[in-house]
């Protein structure tokens, strides 16, 4: 579960899904990811909200938030690793209640956590995620993804649709499926050339890279370039200039690592460039919140219609659904 911006109703959406899952009889776990450190959400700068928990749900939160919980909970595991808010406590709610959820602080840990839920026979793990360039953790390793968007993004419906569509396009970028992709995964830093013959070569160990004529050779021989960190407008600009006859293929770790403007991406792609991602979640729906914290609100149906027109996934207003 990720929000396009603050106040887009991510928490509402999460609560709605939890409430539905409670009725479904599935075994559910919930955690959060992406924010190492503060009890306020670093991305949106709002205090982290309490989540309603139902009996038997498994939740994982930091020691600090576990101690503030308003729920009777059986401790299942205490991690050895620490987040900035202490160790990660995995617990089962023994009653209905509330707790702030602050989970693992990096992607690998989140991955381990999700797979460890098998021991507790969990059917579905929900991750309260975040898109942030400051975060080491990405929710893009989950099977599926829900995106929350809303009036808080823009009071102008066209703008809102444009920005939402762009993020959805990034989420839906194709996966780089190559036998090598697991080897690339382990490259934590640097920019790499991934050759068709299977070899991986470092182009730049850390820091930004200048792409120039020499880079053309990489593409000419059919190789792709993997960015272990961020892809920025500047890098994309330089690469766009190189797109002539040869195929330019670049690989991002996941969509949260791509920080480019829609215009630059469009230019790159229209010239024939292609972006792939290593980790990809299937976007299953977009949730809208017609209310903005500034007080104005958009027409819910008009929003849903406008978004449905440009998106390939269903669009819901969870407030309306729960009413």
């Amino acid at each position: 579960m990720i929000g396009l911006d603050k106040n887009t109703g991510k928490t509402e959406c999460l609560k709605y899904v939890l409430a539905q899952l409670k009725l479904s009889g599935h075994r559910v776990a919930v955690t959060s990811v992406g924010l190492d450190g503060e009890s306020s959400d670093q991305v949106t700068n709002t205090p982290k909200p309490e989540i309603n928990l139902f009996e038997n749900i498994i939740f994982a939160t930091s020691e600090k938030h576990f101690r503030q919980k308003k729920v009777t909970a059986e401790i299942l595991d205490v991690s050895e690793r620490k987040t900035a808010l202490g160790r990660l406590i995995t617990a089962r709610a023994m009653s209905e209640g509330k707790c702030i959820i602050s989970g693992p602080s990096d992607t690998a840990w989140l991955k381990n956590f999700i797979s460890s839920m098998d021991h507790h026979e969990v059917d579905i793990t929900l991750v309260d995620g975040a898109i942030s360039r400051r975060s080491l953790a990405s929710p893009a390793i989950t099977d599926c993804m829900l995106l929350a968007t809303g009036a808080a993004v823009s009071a102008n419906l066209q703008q809102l649709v444009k920005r939402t569509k762009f993020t959805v396009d990034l989420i839906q970028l194709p996966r780089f499926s190559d036998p090598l992709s697991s080897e690339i995964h382990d490259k934590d830093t640097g920019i790499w050339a991934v050759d068709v013959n299977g070899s991986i070569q470092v182009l730049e160990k850390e820091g930004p890279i200048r792409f120039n004529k020499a880079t053309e050779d990489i593409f000419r021989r059919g190789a792709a370039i993997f960015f272990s960190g961020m892809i920025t407008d500047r890098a994309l600009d330089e690469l766009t200039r190189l797109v002539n006859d040869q195929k330019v293929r670049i690989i991002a770790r996941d969509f949260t690592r791509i920080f480019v403007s829609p215009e630059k991406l469009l230019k790159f792609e229209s010239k024939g460039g292609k972006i792939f991602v290593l980790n990809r979640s299937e976007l299953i729906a977009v949730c809208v919140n017609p209310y903005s914290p500034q007080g104005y609100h958009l027409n819910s149906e008009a929003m849903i219609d406008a978004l449905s027109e440009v998106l390939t996934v269903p669009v819901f207003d969870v407030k309306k659904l729960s009413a």
Partner: protein
Amino acid sequence: MKTVRDIMQESAGFRFLINEINIVSSPGRKLLYNRQMMTLADDIRQQLDLLEKMQILVQIPENKDPIDRIIHDLITLKDIQLTISRLSRGEISDDIELFEIKQLSLLNESIKALLKQIRCDLIRLPDLGEVVGLLDPDNQGIPHFYIYSAYSEALLDLRLKIKQTDISSTEEWEAFRLQEQELEEEIRISLSQKLRVFADGLKVALEGLSLLDVLIAVANWSIEMSLCKPGISYKDTRYEALFNPAVKRFLKETGKEYQPVDIHFDKIPVLITGANMGGKTVLLQTVFIAQYLCQFGLFVPAKNAMISPVEAVYFNNEENRTSQNGLSSFAEEMVQLNELVKAVRSGKKVLVLLDELARTTNPDEGKAIVSSTLEFLAGQKTSGLITTHYSGIRVECRKLRIRGLMYEKLSEKIHLKDLNRYMDYRLEEVEMNEAPAEGIRIAEIMGMDEEIIFKAKLHYTGKKP
């Protein structure tokens, strides 16, 4: 006294070896890394005997399953020392701490049973059945914890009420929650009081299980690495088929074989000469590693070994140099050498390993420094291995030579990669004072420019006009 961690920082070869030990718990790793170098023969023997007994146990086929289970269970062992000391001070344990205490106690009980099954009495584990009883009132036997309703009727009643209250009627619900918290706290206070007497037992369990993790991992590692249990002697040190595990692994990966070496030395320093690439540095590094392994109570990389414990090992390996004080490599070497001399004078029993001492200064003076150091060490009856390229060192001491290039096998077509096939790494006793002159020949084999080789030969033989 130096710890395993210290030597891991000093020596890459030692670090390689220790990193191969598959300890599964963090308290186990902490225990091994903080282990101090032992100097008393009895202490070392005791550790080595313990390890030998564990090695026998892990090799019995019927023990495989229970030991695999032990290893699997030990993964959950956590360092809860702080929790235990808070408990022993009479502080109130919170739910997370009670969870940790329960987890440790259950682990202790299950591993105790498994140890009994394999008839292992090497580790003393306490009886924590009562602790488990206190923290598992529903008798579920699983390492989860919360303040169970079984602790108090009042709590049970209250929780039923909470369940029947709608969470959205906030005030009522929160009032009940507050009552619940008060009741839970009373139970925590009473549990902490009852558990306090078991604090020592919990400590013993934590230490025992950590040691068990270390012993099993080290026993398996000793088998995989073909290490042997050294004997402890105050007389001399002898290695039969000594090998360097990191180098051996590297050679094996490139399809080559390691030539183990026999060496012995007592209280007289030994001067070792030999060609470049003859393995002098590797030999010294290996002796360094083996000496420390033994004094940490671990097995050593040899077929047979008898080792004389020392109070300190001095090794002028460049790896060990800190170079933070802005001194040149020669200056730093001399500072280290002086420390060694001081230690020897103070009567400390040391093992001296000097690899090409004073090689970075001019050869005449370098030779003089090697000679005076050797004389000093011989006079002080200090054991040591000193390698050199310098010829004409006329000090009374034992002299060994690495056999080096096997000229009879040398043909015109030698591949650089195969050079080790033409090297005889064995040591032989020699009387002469001359170091072997194989430098130019080796440079030639390495493919050095012909003109340089030709002129070097002229210079060397004095035929250069």
